[in-house]
């Protein structure tokens, strides 16, 4: 993925501790490369992700935020990812409604055995964000319209 010098996207990945964090580790153990722009924050379950954290990441200059969790039905806490699924769907819909590019946010279910899928998802997401360019809209949603 050609990352030219000027635009280095910052991508925050929230990974649930039981499945996708283990999936990330597995892709590491298999030495599957994905861009260094992705930084992973470990949360106990995908249901721990508060929309505030996603907005805070964008506010602090992140260009893309992805939430990885267990496949529905696989959640260590039985129902965690079902709530996360609803919350993220509404958050993405609201951001899209405000005119923010909807490709900047994504949810992906990655199990502990899917190291390859994790790496592939990160590569694909980085490429999408790289094509989208830096995150301008969320920054200046406030300044005067032309």
């Amino acid at each position, binding site marked *: 993925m050609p990352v030219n010098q000027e635009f280095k996207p910052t991508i925050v990945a929230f990974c649930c501790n039981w499945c996708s964090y283990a999936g990330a*580790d597995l892709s590491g153990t298999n030495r599957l490369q994905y861009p*260094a722009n992705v930084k992973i924050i470990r949360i106990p379950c995908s249901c721990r992700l508060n929309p505030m954290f996603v907005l805070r990441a964008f506010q602090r200059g992140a260009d893309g935020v992805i939430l990885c969790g267990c496949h529905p039905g696989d959640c260590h806490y039985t129902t965690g990812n079902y709530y996360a699924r609803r919350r993220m769907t509404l958050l993405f819909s609201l951001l899209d409604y405000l005119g923010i590019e909807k490709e900047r946010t994504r949810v992906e279910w990655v199990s502990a055995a899917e190291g390859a899928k994790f790496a592939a998802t990160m590569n694909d997401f980085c490429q999408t964000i790289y094509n989208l360019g830096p995150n301008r809209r969320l920054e200046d949603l406030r300044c005067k319209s032309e």
Partner: protein
Amino acid sequence: MQRIGVFVCWCGSNIAATVDVKQVAEALGKEPGVVFSTDYQYMCSQSGQEMIQEAIREHRLTGVVICSCSPRMHEATFRKTCQKAGLNPYMVEIANIREQCSWIHKDKITATEKAVILGRAAIAKVHLNAPLTAGTSPVVKRALVIGGGIAGIQTALDIADAGFPVDIVEKKPTIGGKMTQIDKTFPTLDCAACILTPKMVDAAQNENIDIISYAQVEKVQGFVGNFSVTIRKKARYVDETKCTGCGLCTEKCPQKKIPNEFNLGLDNRRAIYIPFAQATPKVATIDPNYCTMLKTGKCGVCSKVCTAGAINYKQEDEIITREYGAIVVATGFEPISMEPFDEFAYSQSPDVVTSLELERLMNAAGPTGGTLLRPSDGAHPHTLVFVQCVGSRCDGAQKGKSYCSKICCMYTAKHAMLIREKYPDTEVYVFYIDVRTPGKNFDEFYRRAVEEYGVHYIKGMVGKVTPQDGKLKVQASDLLGGRQMHIDADMVVLAAAIEPDKSARPLATMLTASMDTNDFFTEAHPKLRPVESPTAGIFLSGACQGPKDIPETVAQAGAAASKVIGLLSKNSLTCNPCTAKPDELMCNGCSSCEKVCPYGAITYVDKPFRGPNRTTLTRRVAQVNPAVCQGCGACTVACPSGAMDLQGFSNKQILAEVDAICR
């Protein structure tokens, strides 16, 4: 202000190869609050840990950040290390700069830069860590084994031996599982029933073991040490306490034409049946789909005939709810369906059978009374063709399984040997890709089949089987002989691939145990923790975790039992201290959190609060039971006022990590 120590690990060359550890240590040393920063080849080694303890004492550290491998690897180690040095174990944070940094980036500059950022995030988090102490929760001294095959029985026996009560829940009317359908077992050729039935009787008579047969698990709640399981015991329409198992009713029942699942449909049984002679519990069961009395209310022959008066047509499903400290999954396997493999004409000719069906045909208690006869015309077969790897080692996408089913080579060698020994006039061909007999005395067993009993092992595959005028025209390739063979066979036996029992899927969701793409249960660690599921308190025994033969199953059953005994012998478990904690001053008492809590750990109470000008207001506030809460965090997001926060992963900590990463 926190006094933080940063320790960057080389992990030999795993990290140091692509991350400049010195630069990372130096960069993190400048972060606010960091008073000590160093690097070392192996932080997790004895000397590495001593270095940490030394630094804690010397620099009076209040927080420790270790940039090393994944926390899933050594979080526990480093927490113990710091605890020994007098630091609260939850004041330690780990930055994963190996699996999520050094191993996945080749360019040293970017990898180092990322390692520094990850380190900063960990430092930002540790600044806001609060010392936590793990609470304890009681352990219910009773185990549950789901599945009554050899795996379940062996696990239950071992647990019962250690003095703990254990329940076996078996879906079928009797325990015993697949092994009861098998004739002889490899490599010793002793008869399956002879070595299994004593264990079944043991299990039945053992006062610590309670067999709940013809029942399925419906609901599982709670967590390790405190599972509450709801079991549905299906109605048998026969009173277990009265029935003596005499079998009179099974002879008199007018409904005769029901395919007998125990013999895989090769013969019929009655509407009221006992699967086989040594069934445990030896109690008749009425099949509601076929019994005319239950369907139309006209018949009742069995209740007239029954001397013990055990028949009760009004019997209802019984719901049993019990508390357990540990659960062992032993749901076993099923051969896959042969329908998609129409090139072998499995559904066109009764003489094309799977290996399990062959077991029944050769078994003394089987439909043909032990003599091998062709299902089509009952004649004695003279040429048999065995086809290996049917559905195994396939592409796995369209049809068949991608894995090797492990047990087929051995049981095919066993079948070939037994047939050649009992009927020397038969010709036996085995078409194989490669024979895999890696166990103890296994290869010698296979060589005996070839050398002593003259079984024709041909490296090649059967391409097509066409049933024609009473014979099966087999067209196969002989790769070593470089020829295409055409054999007129009397019977073709398919070594079908095996897959997990279908009922395992809903069970996995109930137990929050995850499954791999082939629906086998995923173990906590393939090499180091093969008999535990990632969910604490759930253990795996037998083929539900992957294809395996009886010796391995029994070994794994023993291992699972020892893990259960290890768990049940504890009076209490230290539970996860990272639980939710409400801030009562800000709690609205709106019970949003209670609605999303999967464990029901939240209750409400009216508490007095100081109101304006010295009045007291009583307000409804939430309370979390730390022993029940597992720390998932669903409530923290459902709570609008942010009153509910999760210790160890608090809102402020995660926001600090986000800030550190995006800075």
